[in-house]
C-alpha cells in the first residue's frame, strides 16, 4: 500500500471541498473493497477522505410513500431495517445474499453502488487490463473468464459488476441522489452504471468530484410477488455466476406488471424492456417465462469458460419468475431452490 494523506470530513460540504482540493483523493467509508484494492496497488489514492462520520446514516420514509436510504447506512442495517423487510423484501433478500455478515456490518449503501469488479485480471497488476490501465488490453478475453460477462461486453472489457443489492434496486427502479460542487442531482439507478464500451475505466456516471448521499426507493414495492435467486459456486459467501431479481404484480393469474434484472452477467444490473413487455398481460407460466428468457439472452455472447452462463441464466430466469409468481421467494438461509 502506498503512502497517503488521511483527512476526516465532518460535513458533506467539507467532504466535497476536500475532494475538489484533492483530485487524486478518494472517499472512504466502509473500506471493504477500497482497502483491498489499495493493498493490491490497484487503487493508489494520494489522499483518503474519510466520510464515515457524515450524517448520511438514516433510513427515512419519503412523502410519496417511498424510502430514503442514507449513503452511509450499513448493508446489514438496510437488510434488517423493519421498513425494508416489510415493504421491500426483495432488497433485503438481495443484500443478505451478498458477502458475509462481517462485511455487511462494514459496507455502506454508497460503497455497494461504487464497488468495483472482481475480475481476477483487474486485481492482478502484472497483467494487462483496460479497466485498471486503459489501453493495455483485456486479459480476460482469451483468458480465464469463467466469472466474466455474457451481455453488453465490448472488445475492451468483459468485466462483471458484482453487486447483489443493485440488481434488486434496478427492479425497484431506485434513484441515486448525489451532490457535488455544481449542486445536487438525481440519477436513475438503471442509468447509474455504465457499459464498458471503449472506456471500461469508468464504472458509472458519478462525476469524479461528486458524492453519493442517498438511495431513494419509489413506493412500488413488489412485496407479494418477488424473489432474489443467486446461483454461485458455493451456497454462501460467493459472488454470483448468475442472479435474478424479479418483481411481479398479478391480477388473477395474469402479470399486470413484470420486471426482472440479472446480476453476474454484465457491467451493470441487466434489464431488458422487450423481455418484460413480453410478460405483461400474459398468464404467469413457463411458456411466457421461457420466451422472456430467450429475448434477454439472444444477444448473449460467451467467451469460452463462461459460455455455460447463457444456459444457466436462461434456467435461472424461468425459475426466478416462477418463484415470484407462486409467491415462494428464494430463502437466503435454506438454500434448497424453491
Amino acid at each position, binding site marked *: *500500500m502506498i*503512502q*497517503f*494523506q*488521511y483527512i*476526516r470530513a465532518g460535513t458533506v460540504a467539507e467532504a466535497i471541498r476536500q475532494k475538489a482540493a484533492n483530485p487524486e483523493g478518494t472517499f*472512504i467509508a466502509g*473500506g*471493504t473493497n477500497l*482497502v*483491498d484494492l489499495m*493493498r493490491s496497488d490497484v487503487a493508489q489514492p494520494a489522499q*483518503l477522505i*474519510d466520510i*464515515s462520520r457524515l450524517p448520511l446514516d438514516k433510513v427515512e420514509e419519503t412523502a410519496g410513500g417511498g424510502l430514503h436510504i442514507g449513503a452511509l447506512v450499513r448493508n446489514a442495517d438496510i437488510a*434488517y431495517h423493519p421498513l425494508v423487510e416489510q415493504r421491500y423484501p426483495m432488497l433485503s433478500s438481495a443484500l443478505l445474499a451478498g*458477502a*458475509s*455478515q*462481517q*462485511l455487511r*456490518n*462494514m459496507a455502506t449503501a454508497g460503497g455497494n453502488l461504487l464497488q468495483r469488479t472482481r475480475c481476477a485480471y483487474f486485481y492482478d497488476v502484472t497483467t494487462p487490463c483496460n479497466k485498471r490501465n486503459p489501453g493495455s488490453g483485456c486479459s480476460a478475453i482469451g483468458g480465464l473468464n469463467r466469472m466474466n460477462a455474457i451481455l453488453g461486453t465490448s472488445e475492451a472489457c468483459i468485466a462483471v459488476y458484482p453487486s447483489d443489492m443493485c440488481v434488486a434496486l434496478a427492479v425497484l427502479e431506485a434513484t441515486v441522489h448525489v451532490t457535488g460542487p455544481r449542486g445536487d442531482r438525481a440519477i436513475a439507478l438503471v442509468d447509474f452504471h455504465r457499459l464498458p464500451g471503449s472506456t471500461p475505466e469508468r464504472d458509472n456516471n458519478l462525476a469524479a468530484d461528486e458524492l453519493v448521499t442517498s438511495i431513494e426507493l419509489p413506493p412500488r414495492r413488489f412485496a407479494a410477488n418477488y424473489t432474489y435467486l443467486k446461483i454461485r459456486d458455493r*451456497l*454462501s*459467501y460467493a459472488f454470483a455466476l448468475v442472479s435474478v431479481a424479479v418483481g411481479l404484480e398479478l391480477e388473477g393469474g395474469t402479470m399486470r406488471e413484470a420486471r426482472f434484472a440479472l446480476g453476474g452477467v454484465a457491467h451493470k444490473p441487466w434489464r431488458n424492456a422487450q423481455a418484460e413487455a413480453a410478460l405483461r398481460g400474459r398468464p404467469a407460466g413457463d411458456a411466457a417465462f421461457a420466451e422472456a428468457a430467450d429475448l434477454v439472452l439472444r444477444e448473449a455472447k460467451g467467451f469460452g469458460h463462461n459460455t455455460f452462463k447463457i444456459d444457466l441464466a436462461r434456467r435461472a430466469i424461468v425459475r426466478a419468475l416462477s418463484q415470484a409468481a407462486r409467491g415462494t421467494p428464494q430463502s*437466503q*438461509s*435454506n*438454500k434448497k431452490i424453491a
Partner: protein
Amino acid sequence: MFYLSKITADKRLKKGREIAADWSFQHWGKLSMTTIDHRSPGQTPADPTDEADAHRGVTRRGVLHLAGGAVSFTVLPHAGAQAASSPAPTAATAPVQLTVNGEARQLEIDVRQSLLDLLRETLDLTGTKKGCDHGQCGACTVLVDGRRIVSCLTLAVTRDGASVTTIEGLAKNGTLHPLQQAFIDHDAFQCGYCTPGQICSAAGLIAEGKAKTPDEIRELMSGNICRCGAYTNILAAIQQAMEQS
C-alpha cells in the same frame, strides 16, 4: 546489487518461515495435547500454539522476529543509499484513541495500518489471526462497538474512538465466555487457527439475534472459513452458547 540483496533477503525470510513451520510441525502432536492441559480456567484458547510454545521458552513469533531481523540487516544499507538520491516519503501518522478489551489506548499510528495489524503487531494481542488479509476467511473477526467486522479490511485510523473486543477480552473474571467453553465442550476445532475469529463472529451473531435455526446459523457464520472442516461441531457449540444466552 539491490536485486541480489533483495533475493537474499527473501530467501532468508523464506528460510525463517520454513524453520518456524518445521518447528511447529515437529511439535504438532504434543502442542494439540498441551493446549488444553496447561490452561487454567481463566485462560482463553486465544492462541494455543503461542501459549504452548511459551512453555518451552521459545515462541513461534520469536523465531519469526529473528528471521525478520536478518532481513532488515540485509536490506537496510541499500535503503539508506536510495534515500540519499530521492528521499523516501515519510509515513503519515495520526493519533488514535481506542478502547481495547476495556482498556483505553492512546496511540500514534501509521494511517495505513489495519486494525488487525494494530492489534497483533502494536498491542501484541495475537489471538486475532491473519488468514487471507482480504476479508475472505474471517480469521481476523473482532467486535467493534459490539458488531462483528473483519479487522484486516479496517483501517485502524477510521475507527478512532471505537471500542474493540478481541478473543482476549471475552473471558470475564477468570471464567471462559460461554462460547469459549462451548467450543471446548464440542471439540469445535482442530488446528485452532480460525477459532478466535469463529468465536468472535459467533458472539456477534448471538448479539444480532437473527439466527434461530441451524440453517440460519450456518448462513450467518459463512464468513468464517474452517479449513479443517470442523463446521458440524462449531454449529453445535454455537447452539449450546445460544441456549445459555
